[in-house]
């Protein structure tokens, strides 16, 4: 119900008095009106921009944030107003919705920002007014496609090799040749052979000079029959192998067999096999020659290699209705004009317009402005109608063409956008990765700095103050809590990779390369204590925690001095602004089974956390 109409509810209820005298049963008790006559102005301060409205206006929609008691959470006593830390420009539209009952979507706003604001204020986007609904839906769809594309690319890039079976990896190689070099090689080889095959088909028919014992000129195909046959065989072999491999690798064989590309493949190689089967039969050799025509379909195999060709095909498919209309209107016009021309030219002697179907040819040639000149009208009336025919031909063809062109342009731009996004994605990912690693490194550095505090109070504190504002400190504390909770630690990539390689050598996987299992508090002094344990315990714990530990201790000893704290610190000097979620993501490394570390072990505090050497050997399984 529109907001304005809601204001008429009192009227509707009052008008119900008209039913009372005729009512056959007693009326129900009216609902209690809790708040009444308090129609004051409400001040809504949205990031400094003050909006004022009546209380009743907001309460028209009690299931939204502003209309319900939820807004009390945002009440600011000192200034006696409701403060929202949101975008005032978008808020204007939201408030207008309360006022007029119609929600509009401003075209210049970002769709996701708008959606977020709507979600915050508890307004469902479906009530956007008709004037803006289409635009909103279009933008939303575009955005979804963009996100979907990104996700697909993510998935295809992040799929770990060993998770896929050989069949799946082969299919992936076929579909995305850029994933592996083998696939790329295969892609180019097939492309080359398609080109060679098509070229051979073409050259076969070129006249090649006379053969030694013949008078007539022969085509190259007949002259070098054997060579062409060998070439054809080779190509067909390659195509057959490719088809069979694709069939083997396809996740859904039935769907693959039904798809257009596979049909093209089959049609491209069938003529050869059919030719093999019935070479010597004279009767069907005529049909055999016709079959060779189908070899030209091999050129369609190029559509796997060219995106533009695929787009063209897709456009034609999506413009099927316009093409159908074009065809229909052309047919109508052809029949009309052919009939007229036939009867107009019936009288003239020696006219080529022998029948209406014969006149079809003239009409088509004229309407498409070809004008071969093999059939021309000779009578005056024929010429008049002929000219009308050619004029109308231009119009009829010109009308649906822009629709097809705009469709093609839209699809083409869409694919261009996808390509651009893919290219940008790489740089974007690189940027994200840099930030993530920066964040994680900040935490790692903080841990080292935290130790610095016990080691060297003043210097450490100075360093801490410089690089760790309050937010960072609290964030690091949080990460530390998480480490404590999971009994794992965050490490940097290098260490992780190395430990990964070592772990792969180890037979035993039961013992986790676990961590600062000592349930120490976060105070500096406890760290100090732990630190002092580290070195001696590294030897002790070997026996306790198994071979993995052993390796890690070995690792510690082997680590060169260059990996000292100072150098690492120098490397991580830049403090990248932290994003809360990222350290979790980067540090989510190998998920090794971690048995709960019991306190006796804890006391001996795993040797792993040997901060002093800035080698965080432990991996954290988040």
């Amino acid at each position, binding site marked *: 119900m*529109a907001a304005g109409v809601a204001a*008429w509810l009192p009227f*509707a209820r*009052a*008008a119900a008095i008209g039913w009372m005298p005729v009512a056959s049963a*007693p009326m129900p008790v009216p609902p209690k*009106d809790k708040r009444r006559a308090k129609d004051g102005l409400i001040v809504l301060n949205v990031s400094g921009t003050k909006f004022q409205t009546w209380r009743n206006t907001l309460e028209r929609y009690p299931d939204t944030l502003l209309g319900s008691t939820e807004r009390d959470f945002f009440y600011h006593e000192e200034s006696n107003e409701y403060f929202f830390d949101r975008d005032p420009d978008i808020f204007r539209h939201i408030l207008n919705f309360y006022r007029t009952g119609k929600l509009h979507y401003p075209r210049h706003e970002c769709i996701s920002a708008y959606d977020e604001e709507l979600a915050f204020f508890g307004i469902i986007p479906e009530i956007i007014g008709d004037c803006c609904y289409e635009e909103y839906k279009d933008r939303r769809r575009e955005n979804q496609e963009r996100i979907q594309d990104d996700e697909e690319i993510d998935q295809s890039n992040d799929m770990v090799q060993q998770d896929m079976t050989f069949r799946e990896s082969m299919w992936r190689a076929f579909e995305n040749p850029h994933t592996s070099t083998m696939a790329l090689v295969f892609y180019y080889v097939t492309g080359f052979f398609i080109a060679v095959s098509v070229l051979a088909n073409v050259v076969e028919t070129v006249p090649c000079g006379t053969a030694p014992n013949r008078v007539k000129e022969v085509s190259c195909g007949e002259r070098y029959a054997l060579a062409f046959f060998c070439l054809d065989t080779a190509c067909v072999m390659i195509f057959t192998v490719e088809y069979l491999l694709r069939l083997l690798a396809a996740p859904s064989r039935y769907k693959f067999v039904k798809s257009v590309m596979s049909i093209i493949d089959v049609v491209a190689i069938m003529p050869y096999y059919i030719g093999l089967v019935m070479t010597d039969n004279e009767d069907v050799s005529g049909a055999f020659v016709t079959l060779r025509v189908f070899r030209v379909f091999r050129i369609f195999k190029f559509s796997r290699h060219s995106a533009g060709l695929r787009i063209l095909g897709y456009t034609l498919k999506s413009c099927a209705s316009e093409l159908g209309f074009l065809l229909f209107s052309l047919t109508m016009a052809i029949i009309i004009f052919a009939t007229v021309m036939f009867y107009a030219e019936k009288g003239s002697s020696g006219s080529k317009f022998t029948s209406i179907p014969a006149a079809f040819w003239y009409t088509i040639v004229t309407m498409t402005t070809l004008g071969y000149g093999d059939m021309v009208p000779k009578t005056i009336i024929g010429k008049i109608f002929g000219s009308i025919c050619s004029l109308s031909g231009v119009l009829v063809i010109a009308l649906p063409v822009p629709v097809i062109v705009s469709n093609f342009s839209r699809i083409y731009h869409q694919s261009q956008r996808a390509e651009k996004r893919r290219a940008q994605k790489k740089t974007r990912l690189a940027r994200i990765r840099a930030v993530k690693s920066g964040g994680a490194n900040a935490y790692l550095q903080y841990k080292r700095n935290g130790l610095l505090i016990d080691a060297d109070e003043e210097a450490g504190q100075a360093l801490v103050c410089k690089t760790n504002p309050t937010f960072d400190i609290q964030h690091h504390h949080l990460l530390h809590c998480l480490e404590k909770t999971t009994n794992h630690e965050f490490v940097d990539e290098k260490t992780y990779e190395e430990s990964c390689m070592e772990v792969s050598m180890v037979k035993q996987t039961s013992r986790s390369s676990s961590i600062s299992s000592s349930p120490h508090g976060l105070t500096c002094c406890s760290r100090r204590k732990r630190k002092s344990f580290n070195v001696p315990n590294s030897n002790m714990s070997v026996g306790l925690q198994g071979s993995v530990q052993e390796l890690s201790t070995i690792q510690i000893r082997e680590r060169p001095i260059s990996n000292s704290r100072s150098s690492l610190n120098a490397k991580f000097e830049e403090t990248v602004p932290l994003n809360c979620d990222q350290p979790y993501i980067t540090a989510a490394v190998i998920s090794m089974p971690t048995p709960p570390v019991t306190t006796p072990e804890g006391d001996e505090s795993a040797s792993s956390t040997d901060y002093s050497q800035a080698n965080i050997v432990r991996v954290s399984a988040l």
Partner: protein
Amino acid sequence: MSTPSKRTQWREDLQHLRKEHGFSKKVLLNCCLVRRIITWASPNPKDSVEDELELSAVRHRPEGLEQLEAQTRFSRKELQILYRGFKNECPSGVVNEDTFKDIYAQFFPQGDASTYAHFLFNAFDTDHNGSVSFEDFVMGLSILLRGTVQEKLNWAFNLYDINKDGYITKEEMLDIMKAIYDMMGKCTYPVLKEETPRQHVEIFFQKMDKNKDGVVTIDEFIDCCQNDENIMRSMHLFENVI
């Protein structure tokens, strides 16, 4: 096309031109032909302007707040709230019957409220000028929400008496009843039958028509309602709606 006066004017012009400049008749005729074609082709702009004026003239400003306060039993604040809602839905200041029907229909989506809205409109439109202004609206509401029981019953009688002759006949009552049942729509439990409104009218007349003359007068109506507890109670139902 051109009015007779215009045609004579042209004729005079023509003759004048012929005499003065020695134009041949043929040339002048052709010229006139062209002008005629032009006037025929271009539509008369006068009508559309008049239409526009008419539309914009329908704009009503209500009497002052003080007068309305005096005439109705609403407080100043209540009048303000009512007017704001009214103006929001009808920016021109008056409601015509179609808008009225639309608004009322929105409250009863399952059924057809147009007939009852028509009767309501006539009840509100006290001066019968085809549109309900804010004053009419507020007066009606004042009676319905703040009036005495007598006034409310009077208003209800006025609603039922479609031709405003002081008597409610069975046909009038049947119309009203059908309108009310129409608002229920199709999907009811128990299912609405054809004769339900008629039966209801019979019951009503049995109750109200004391002297059994087939019509209900205002006195019969008020007497009867005042003796009926249910009706009395229901009259006070919507008192605190505003």
